[in-house]
């Protein structure tokens, strides 16, 4: 109990420095996201790609530094549920966009 980084179960729940590292990374990534749109330095497709990469990295930073997702055996079922959800939501979003854009193409509404 004397070590602030581990609880009685040995589970990690972060320290001041890990929260600060996560926070600084998140601020940098957010500022980059805003900057890339406000500066108009890239073509629209490139800007969207850059935004997607920055958002993905920032989500990973939050998951690691704020939600403390890890690979320990403690977290196994959390991770399984998470991977299932990511797969489910990906199919949901990609499938919806794919089907609906095909529909509008074929109906010539676009």
């Amino acid at each position, binding site marked *: *109990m004397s070590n602030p980084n581990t609880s009685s179960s040995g589970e990690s729940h972060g320290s001041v420095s890990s929260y600060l590292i996560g926070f600084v990374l998140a601020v940098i990534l957010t500022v980059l996201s805003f900057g890339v749109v406000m500066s108009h330095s890239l073509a629209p497709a490139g800007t969207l790609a850059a935004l997607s990469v920055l958002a993905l990295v920032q*989500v990973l930073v939050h998951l690691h530094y704020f939600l403390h997702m890890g690979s320990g055996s403690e977290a196994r079922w959390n991770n399984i549920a998470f991977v299932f959800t990511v797969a489910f939501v990906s199919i*949901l979003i990609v499938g919806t966009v794919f089907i609906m854009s095909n529909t509008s193409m074929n109906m010539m509404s676009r």
Partner: protein
Amino acid sequence: MAQNTTVPTAGHDEHHHENTVVFGFWVYLMTDCIIFGSLFATFAVLRNQFNGGPTPHELFEFGGLGLETALLLLSSITYGFGMIAAHKSEISKVILWLAVTFLLGLGFVGLEVREFAHMIAEGAGPDRSAFLSAFFTLVSTHGLHVTCGLIWIVTLIVQLMGTTEIPERMMNKLTCLSLFWHFLDIVWICVFTYVYLASMI
């Protein structure tokens, strides 16, 4: 020191208990993820259906969005500091950090309500176009979650007041709220990236 000697035996049972409670809440968050996924998919399909109404370029501004993002991001780290204090059983610090988190969250909701009121007053309400319907549904669902989080924070502050130690049960509540709050920040990353910034390219 007296406390330390009781930890190994008590810690084992409670540790098992904590896992099921926090895991159960984690599964709830995953279902919440699917709700937001559906709303993002809806928004992605309808994002160009303006029906002659206002477009994102006319509606969104960088200043307000940046401020909302900053408030929510700051509230994430202040809650984190609250959790660190909780693990050290420093209750007055926990209450202080929770109060700071509450104020930052309240600022976020206030800015969002002001933005919505401004848009509706300009005639860009959710009934104007499919794009605006999808926008209001997605962003206000997130705002509603943050509002629930605020009520939850107040509840926990009240429960913590006057206590001298944090029992395992209280720790579970704080951990679940921590997951909830950080999860909402992750959803906001997707909102400001795909709903706001991607529409302003």
